């Protein structure tokens, strides 16, 4: 058991997976000699060699495409895209190949790869370094999308993603990389990829959040508790496929729901979750589902990023709104 940050938990899971399975390889820009720009792969090259921790030429489409080829040929590649804002050329490979190789060959070839990328705003980074393209990935058939919110979740979910026989996009909240530490047991135990977690129990309103927004939702819940309003906070963890059982059970209990995402509002996962709640739990609802999202604008440069991202105050305000709904 060690007290570690989220990025250290990523590193720990990668090392564990590489130790246990020779077919696991890491590839990406600056992942080897440099250990990754966020240090997520630090020390791996020294430990497992340059062939298994490959510094690639600077081409994101190549990185994803090579991972598809490696996976089809029996390796378990864990590819890193340095920032989610650079992942768009890799989406071609995820959509046209990773997500459909198994289907289009009727099970003959498969694609057990992981595409890791730091995601989201809040680290005062340059332009294009603070994007949240989660919904674009979640729209791709045949893949899974995972978004941890803490060191222990990052460790267990990444191990599960690497072991999964299908492609997984693993989004990492860069804002939480070093924000807090947590006790993580390096015992190689994966977390389930089809389950949401109840991060805080409550009775009055359900918050559904993931990644960095989970911390904001927990902060809002704490603030509201002082007012006698008890929010249940669900860490969605896996964005595709979504564990609606857990979400709906909570909403049926509380009757109110606020869904929070750092991504722009239109066609967001918050919209998808809201639609599902309307379809499946309408009569349990005491108020319309509220979405707290980023705005439908370009991710601003960092002087305005605090205004752009949802925060605890906006979440708490949404909670009060659904509580007051009549």
């Amino acid at each position, binding site marked *: 058991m060690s007290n570690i940050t989220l990025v250290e938990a990523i590193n720990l899971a990668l090392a564990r997976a590489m130790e246990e399975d020779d077919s696991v*390889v890491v590839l990406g820009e600056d992942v080897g000699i440099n250990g990754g720009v966020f240090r997520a792969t630090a020390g791996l090259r020294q430990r497992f060699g340059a*062939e*298994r921790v*490959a510094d*690639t*030429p600077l*081409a994101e*489409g*190549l990185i*994803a*495409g*090579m*991972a*598809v*080829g*490696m*996976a*089809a*040929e*029996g*390796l378990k*590649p864990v590819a890193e895209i340095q920032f989610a804002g650079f992942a768009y*050329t890799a989406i*071609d*490979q995820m959509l*046209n*190949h990773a997500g459909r*190789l*198994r*289907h*289009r*060959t*009727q*099970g*003959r*070839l*498969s694609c057990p790869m992981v595409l890791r990328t730091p995601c989201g705003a809040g680290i005062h980074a340059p332009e294009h370094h603070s994007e949240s393209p989660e919904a674009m990935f979640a729209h791709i*058939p*045949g893949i899974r999308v995972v978004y941890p919110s803490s060191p222990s979740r990052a460790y267990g979910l990444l191990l599960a993603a690497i072991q999964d*026989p*299908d492609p997984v996009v693993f989004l990492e909240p860069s804002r939480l990389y070093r924000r807090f530490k947590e006790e993580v047991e390096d015992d190689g135990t994966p977390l389930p990829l*089809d389950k949401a977690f109840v991060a805080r129990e409550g009775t009055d309103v359900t918050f559904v959040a993931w990644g960095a927004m989970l911390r904001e939702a927990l902060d809002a819940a704490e603030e509201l508790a002082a007012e006698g309003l008890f929010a249940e906070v669900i860490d969605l963890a896996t964005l595709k*496929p*979504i*564990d*609606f059982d857990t979400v709906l059970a909570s909403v049926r209990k509380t009757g109110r729901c606020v869904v929070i995402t750092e991504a722009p509002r239109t066609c967001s996962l918050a919209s998808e979750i809201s639609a599902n709640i309307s379809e499946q739990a309408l009569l349990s609802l005491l108020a319309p589902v509220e979405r707290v999202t980023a705005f439908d604008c370009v991710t601003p440069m960092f002087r305005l990023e605090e205004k752009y991202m949802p925060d605890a105050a906006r979440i708490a305000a949404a909670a009060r709104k659904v509580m007051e709904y009549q």
Partner: protein
Amino acid sequence: MTVAATFEIRFTRYLLPDGREAADLPSFAADPRALVPDYRAMVFMRALDAKAVAMQRTGQIGTYASTLGKEAVDAGIGAVLGKDDVLLPSYRESGVLMLRGVSPHRTLLYWGGDERGNVFPESPRDFPFNVPIGTQLPHAAGVAYAMKLRREPRVALAMCGDGATSKGDFYEALNAAGVWQLPMVVVAVNNHYAISVPRHMQTKAQTIAQKGIAAGIDCEQLDGNDLIAVRDAVGRAVEKARNGGGPTLLEALTYRLSDHTTADDATRYRSAEEVAEQWKQEPILRLRTWLHSKGAWSQAEEQALAKDAAAHVQKMVKAYLETPPPGPEQMFEHLYARLPRQYIGQLAQLTEEQEPHVEHHAG
């Protein structure tokens, strides 16, 4: 001014369009009879291709991409690529797949709108037909990387067209193959058209082969209508890659004698004269003329071969038409290794909505 770098591109050709020899032949061609199996394969390919076009015209398959004119490229690659090597084809490579052992009725299934056309039990590591242009080339780099990592004496051979060489995927894959000296061969089949866009509008480069220079890898242009040149150049590149010599880009010069696909009409963008001129260069006539001149092929054999090919085509058509249509559950069956419970409801909805006796199959 000093010169930082210079380059030259080798062009390989052994047989002239009229079947005469242009150079001393490589050793595998010393006995002309040794090339008869390749010739037979080319004739089979053309017969299957003609049938596929006819089947599209009569509504028995969907849009089909003809292989007319590239039979020497396909036969040459098929002859030299090893059983344990991996082929990464584009969508026009059914000829090579046939030589990989894949039953040609799969090609009809594929263009007949059925994923089972990509099931290759006879060559299970080969990649499926690839439609998004050039996207199979990064896969080849990944496959070759895996082979090299595991110290396997295997090769990844990817094929693409001249249009694909304008894409980033093409250059990114070659570049990576150069950096890691991967056991990878890319054959760019330059058939002079990307649908309607002619080769000279695709790139200002004098050759497509020289695009390998920028990646620091060996490259060569060859006459893709000359079976001996294809076998020779691809054979050398594959064995070099297998022996740790690194990647090669080959540009095979050929000509798309057909429309781009059955949905295209090439008369809109090229002249009948141009096409007629290209028919004088075509690969089957060229090889047959040479075989005849060597006394390695008789008229009687030619007639017997035509019969064999026709019989084979009929067998393949029958196998295609007798394949039962897929059930709707096929859409979810191989979506994931194990379908997440979240999608079981959609699968149930899909299968319940089907009427029991709807006939989906084109045949």
